[in-house]
C-alpha cells in the first residue's frame, strides 16, 4: 500500500477537520491492506468476528462502493475509516433493502447501474452491526437463586472509531434489590432494554470501568470483563511524530521498500477479572506512541491485564518487535501475507 494523503478537505458536515482523505487506488490499497492485516492477525473469538468485518470493509472506498465514491476518509487519531464511512455502509444497506429487488440492473457503468450493483451486493452481505448483544446462560444455581451468564457485545464505538467486542462473565441474583438486567426463560437468556442501554453507554469504556460499573448494580456480580479492539492503525504522518515508532513509520527511514507504505495495525486487549493472580500491562501501544501508559487500576478484588498484538508489513516486523522488547513490553508481531498493494 502506498498512501497518498491529501490535504484535509472536510467533505462532510460535522467531520473532523483533519480527516485523512485517500483517493482512488490509494483508498482501495488501504482497504486491501486492512483486510490482509485482519487475515494475518489470527484473531480469536474474543475479538470482533473477522468475516463480517471483511465484508464491511469490502464496501468501502471507490472499488467497494462500485465507483459511487471516489475517496475514503480516515479518522485522524487512529487511522481507521471514519465513523461516517463505516456507518454509511449500514445506512446504504437499509436503503438497499428498500430498493426494488426486481429492478433490472442496466448494462454499462451509469451511476444508476453502479448503485444497483452496490445495493444488490449489500443486500445479501453480513456486515458488522452497530451494536449486537448476545447473552448465553452459563450456569443456573437454583439454591442460591443465581444464574451466571456470558454476555458478548459487538459494538461500533463511534468515539474510538473502531469495532470492539466485550466479553463479560457475570452472575445475576434473582430477587435482589433493583431491576433485573437479564431475563431468563428456561435456558434462554435475553438482555433487557435497560441492560442494552447500559452496555451501549459503556461501549467506549475500558474493561476495568465496565467491570466496576456493572458490578455496582445490586443484582449483578461481575467475574470477568474483556475488551478486544481492532485498531488503531498507525500510519505515516499521524501524530505524535516524536514517538519511538516515528522512525519506523517514516517512509524516509522505514525498513519498508520505497514502494511500500509502512503501517502498523494494533489489536489491543484488556481484561479485568477476579481469577487472575496479578495485574500486568504488556501493551506497548501507548509507549510506542510516546504516551504514558495508563495506570493499572483494577476494581476491588480483581486484577487487570493489558496486552496487544501488532500486524505490519514484513520488513517492519523485526524492528517493531525489537522496539517493543526495548520498551519492556514484548508482544506478538505478525507480518501480513504477500505483498502490500500500491
Amino acid at each position: 500500500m502506498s498512501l497518498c494523503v491529501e490535504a484535509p478537505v472536510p467533505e462532510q458536515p460535522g467531520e473532523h477537520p483533519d480527516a485523512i482523505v485517500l483517493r482512488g487506488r490509494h483508498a482501495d490499497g488501504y482497504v486491501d491492506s486492512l483486510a490482509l492485516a485482519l487475515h494475518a492477525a489470527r484473531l480469536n473469538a474474543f475479538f470482533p468476528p473477522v468475516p463480517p468485518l471483511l465484508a464491511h470493509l469490502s464496501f468501502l472506498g471507490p472499488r467497494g462502493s462500485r465507483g459511487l465514491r471516489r475517496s475514503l476518509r480516515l479518522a485522524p487519531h487512529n487511522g481507521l475509516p471514519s465513523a461516517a464511512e463505516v456507518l454509511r455502509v449500514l445506512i446504504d444497506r437499509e436503503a438497499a433493502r428498500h430498493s426494488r429487488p426486481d429492478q433490472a440492473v442496466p448494462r454499462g457503468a451509469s451511476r444508476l447501474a453502479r448503485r444497483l450493483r452496490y445495493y444488490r451486493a449489500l443486500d445479501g452481505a453480513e456486515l458488522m452491526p452497530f451494536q449486537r448483544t448476545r447473552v448465553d446462560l452459563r450456569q443456573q444455581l437454583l439454591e442460591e437463586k443465581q444464574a451466571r451468564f456470558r454476555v458478548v457485545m459487538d459494538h461500533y464505538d463511534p468515539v474510538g472509531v473502531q469495532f470492539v467486542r466485550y466479553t463479560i462473565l457475570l452472575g445475576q441474583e434473582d430477587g435482589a434489590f433493583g431491576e433485573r438486567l437479564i431475563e431468563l426463560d428456561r435456558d434462554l437468556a435475553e438482555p433487557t432494554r435497560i441492560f442494552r442501554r447500559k452496555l451501549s453507554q459503556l461501549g467506549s469504556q475500558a474493561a476495568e470501568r465496565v467491570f466496576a460499573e456493572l458490578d455496582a448494580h445490586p443484582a449483578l456480580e461481575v467475574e470477568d470483563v474483556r475488551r478486544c479492539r481492532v485498531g488503531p492503525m498507525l500510519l505515516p504522518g499521524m501524530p505524535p511524530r516524536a514517538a519511538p515508532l516515528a522512525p519506523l513509520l517514516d517512509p524516509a527511514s522505514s525498513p519498508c521498500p520505497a514502494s511500500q507504505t509502512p503501517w502498523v495495525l494494533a489489536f489491543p486487549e484488556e481484561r479485568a477479572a477476579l481469577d487472575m493472580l496479578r495485574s500486568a500491562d504488556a501493551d506497548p501501544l501507548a509507549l510506542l506512541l510516546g504516551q504514558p501508559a495508563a495506570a493499572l487500576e483494577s476494581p476491588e478484588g480483581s486484577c487487570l491485564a493489558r496486552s496487544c498484538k501488532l500486524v505490519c508489513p514484513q520488513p517492519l516486523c523485526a524492528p517493531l518487535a525489537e522496539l517493543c522488547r526495548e520498551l519492556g513490553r514484548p508482544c506478538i508481531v505478525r507480518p501480513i501475507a504477500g505483498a502490500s498493494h500500491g
Partner: protein
Amino acid sequence: MAESPGALLGKASRAGADEAFSDLVHQFQDPLAFLRELVQNALDAGSTLIELRFTHGGEGLVQVEVEDNGEGMDEATIDRYLLTLFRSTKEEDLTKIGKFGIGFVSIFAFEPELAVCETGRAGESWRLIFHPGGRFEKLRLAEPLEGTRVRLLKRMRPEDFERLREQGRRVVAYWCKYAECEIRVDGEPINEPFQLDAPFARRYTEPGTEFWLGLARPGPRSGDAGDPLDGFEARVSFSNRGLTLLEAGRVPGPHEDLAGICLVAKSRYLEHTLTRDNVLQDEQFDKLVDLVRKELDASVLPRLFEHMRRWAAHRSGAVRAPAPGEPALEPCLRMARLPCVRFASQAEREPVFPTTDGEPLSLRRLRRQTVLAARRSNPVTRLLAERGQDVLLRLPGLSDLLRQCAGIEIRSADATYCTAVPSAGSLKPEEAQALCQRVAGLASRAGLRVDGVHLGRLDYPSSKVAKRLFIRQREAFGLTETGVDDRPTIFGGARQLVLNAQHGLARRCLELARDDLELAALLVAQAVVLTESDAGSAAADLPARSFAQRSCEERGP
C-alpha cells in the same frame, strides 16, 4: 521445578495418586483421543483456528502438534486447572464443552517420550515439559506467545508414522468436522458445512442450539426384515459447538418413535459421557429430543405429506397437476413406512394415494372400501371408476405401506376384473355381425348357453386376458369379474361371449370369413366349445367333442 503425576491430582498421597493417574490415562482406549481433547480445549479457549501437524523428523522422531489461537493460559490457570485433575474452569458452564478437567491427561495415552505445552496470555508465556509417567517441569519464557501449542514427541518407524498421520486425520475429521472454528490437519481444512443432505431437511435454530432434521433416504436393502431401518440411510449426529459427541443410526435411548430421522444437531447444552463414547442422556438431551420431535411434527412431516399430496395429484388420472420434483413418489412411499413418520396416525386425512382415473385418496377413504389397485389407467379401471369404485395407482412400496401402517390389503384390479374393447378386426361391421350370429348359433347347437357373440379386443394395457380367445360377460364390453362371470356357462357364467379379434386363431378365422363365412364360423365355434370343455368339467367334454365331430362330418371332406 519438577513435579510428579501425583501433583496433577492435588494433595492425594503420591502412590495412590500415581495409580489413579494411570487408571485415568488408560480410560482413553483410543491413543489418539488426545487430538479430540485438545481440540475441545482449544474451542473452549475461544480459538478460531486450530492447526494440527504430523511431522517425521530425523532419527525416527515423530512430532504431533496441536496449535490454537485461543486465549492461552496464565500461571494461575496452569496451576489451578491444567495441572489439577478433575478441576476445570468449565465445570457446569454451558458455554464450554469440556467439563471434567481430565482432557489434557489424554496426551499420556499416546505414550509420548516427551510432551511440551507452550502457552501465553496477557504478556506471560510458559512452557511445560511432561516426561513419561506425567512428571513435568514448568518454565517461564521471555518471548511472547499467543494461544496454546502442544507438541508430543515419540519414536516411530516411517510406515507407522504414515498410519498415524492417516488415523489422526480420520479421528479429527470424525470428531471435529462441524467445529465452529477452522481446523487444519497438515495445512488442509477438515471442516464440513453444518448441513444435512436428506429429504425434507429443515434447519431449526434457537440460542445455543441448532439442528438440521430430515428423513432417512431409501437405499439398498441388506435383507434384515426385522429392522425397520433396513434399506434406509438413517444417521444422527450430536455435537457441542460442532465437536461430535455421538454419531449413530438412531437417537440413543427410548426414542423408537424417532427411528428413521436424519439429524445433525449441535447444542451447547449437550455433554459427552465421562468415557467420551456417547452423548450424556440427561435432562438437556431430553429437551433437545423434544425439540426434534416437535420440529418433526411441525415442519418435516407436513412437508413430506405436502410433497406426497402434490405427487399424488400429479399422478392421479383426474387431476394431472404439475410434477413437484425430487424425491419421486415411490421413495416417499418407502419413507412413509419409517417409524418416525407414524403414517397411520399422521396421514389419516391426507390425500396422498394417487388413483388411476379419479382424485387422490386418503387413508380414511381407503378404509371404507375394498382397495383395488392397477399399474395404469385402462378400460377396466375406467369402468370401475364409472361404477364409483376407486382404483389406486399401484406403485412400488404401496402394498407394504398400506399393510404395515393400516392393515389394508390391496387387490389387483386387473386380476379381479377384465373387459373387452369393441373391435371388428379385419372385417367390416356387417361381416363381423354375420360371423358372430353364425358362431352364436353353432355354439348354442353345441349346448353352450350363449345369448350373444361379439368381436372385440382383449389386449388393453395390463390385460390379464390378452391371450385368451374369448371372455364371457354379463353385458358385452362391460366389466367382468374374473372367475365369477367368466366361468363356463354350465357353471353359471355370463352369456355374452366376446371373441378376441387379436387372438391368432380368431385372426385367421376372420381372414377366412371373407371367403367362407360358414367355415370360419364353424372353426371359431369349435374352438370356443373346445375351450369351454377344457375349462369345464369332464361332463361338458363329451357333447362338445361330438359336436365338433358332427360338424366336420356335415361339411364333408
